[in-house]
């Protein structure tokens, strides 16, 4: 593959269809600037600011853009909120749709046949493989991203985090907790 990809890049450059420096900028953007730490900021803000949380519920695209995250593969955002009675899980059974501005590029498993096939049929089985066990009476709600709407899960704020500021809270928010395959980390012991 290495050789084939390099060969195609050469041809496309010779023909003037691509600017190789643009490729470098694209790669650097998703390796260093756009990733799940963006989404973690959104979640931490929602945990600490009731007005912001209501804005997210009402118009997630605008509320997320207000923190500087917008654009490709996040043009139409919806935030879905976990509660004690409902756990949300996001999938794209048809391809790999994923909210890039807040989570970056999807992990390999998100694009894989096991996850895409099973998430809509046996999500508790899927969650168990991520080490997540839900209460028996918690309803699982799966969001299949079949159009251009992109979903971000707002996990529940972990107990024992009352004294933490936004930065410390964001550090507890994992990528998987914003897809729904994980839960936020527990706070460090001294914060309890």
């Amino acid at each position, binding site marked *: 593959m290495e050789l084939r990809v390099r060969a195609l890049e050469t*041809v496309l450059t010779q023909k003037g*269809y691509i600017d190789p420096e*643009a490729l470098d900028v694209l790669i650097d953007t998703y390796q260093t600037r756009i990733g799940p730490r963006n989404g973690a900021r959104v979640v931490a803000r929602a945990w600490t600011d009731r007005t912001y949380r209501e804005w997210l519920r009402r118009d997630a695209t605008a509320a997320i853009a207000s923190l500087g995250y917008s654009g490709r593969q996040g*043009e139409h955002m919806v935030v879905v909120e976990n509660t004690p009675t409902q756990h949300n899980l996001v999938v794209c059974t048809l391809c790999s749709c994923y909210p890039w501005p807040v989570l970056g590029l999807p992990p*390999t498993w998100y694009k894989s046949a*096991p996850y895409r096939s099973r998430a*809509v049929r046996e999500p508790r089985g899927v969650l168990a493989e991520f080490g997540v066990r839900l209460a028996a009476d918690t309803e699982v709600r799966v969001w299949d991203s079949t159009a251009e709407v992109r979903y971000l899960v707002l996990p529940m704020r972990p107990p024992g985090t009352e004294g933490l500021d936004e930065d410390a809270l964001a550090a507890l928010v994992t990528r998987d907790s914003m897809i729904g395959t994980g839960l936020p980390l527990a706070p460090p012991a001294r914060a309890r």
Partner: protein
Amino acid sequence: MNRRYATHADLGGQRGHGRITPEPEGELFHAPWEPRALALTLAMGATGSWNIDMSRAARETLPGYARCSYYEIWFEALCRLLAEHRLVWPDEAAAGRALHGSPAVARTLRAADVPAVLAMGSPTARPAATPARFAIGQAVRMHGGDVPHHTRLPRYVRGKRGVVEHVHGTHVFADAHALGRGEDPRWLYTVVFRGSELWPGPADAGEAAALAVSVDAWEPYLEPA
């Protein structure tokens, strides 16, 4: 004669794909060519030679889909689109140099423009020309049966009864867009299904009882239930 459209990507509900392999947060690529293949796909998409729905159609109909890694799928589909549009011939891709002409593309993505292009994205919402046919809370039944072209209606909800939960306005209609029939904006709905409606078999009863699944569906996929 119309050949049957065969997508290999419609995986929802299939059995037998095995376990999931979780991955740490920072792990984005697994070979040096993967980020280049990703960036080539994005940069060629930005030339406007095809749209995202045409890309999805090219990927999901690749004969080797099930055997390929995801970036292999992207790369193979890119080669296919380039060949179909006569931009890069297979012998050029193999030789690693231009051998034929270079038909013009609408634009070339320059490094300096990348941040602005990514930040703008490609919103698909369009002004509504007609009133919405369905309202929140209304019961609907999804179109059943085969679709002879690219579609975003997964098989596992076809013919199933659900409820409209949200109305997203009108959006570029993927089916028409993939066929090159323009944007043809249609109303887009979130339709939610009970797990027991989707998976009525006894083997699924345990999970299905406390499960709801939604899809985002354009109006032509729906009929009143």
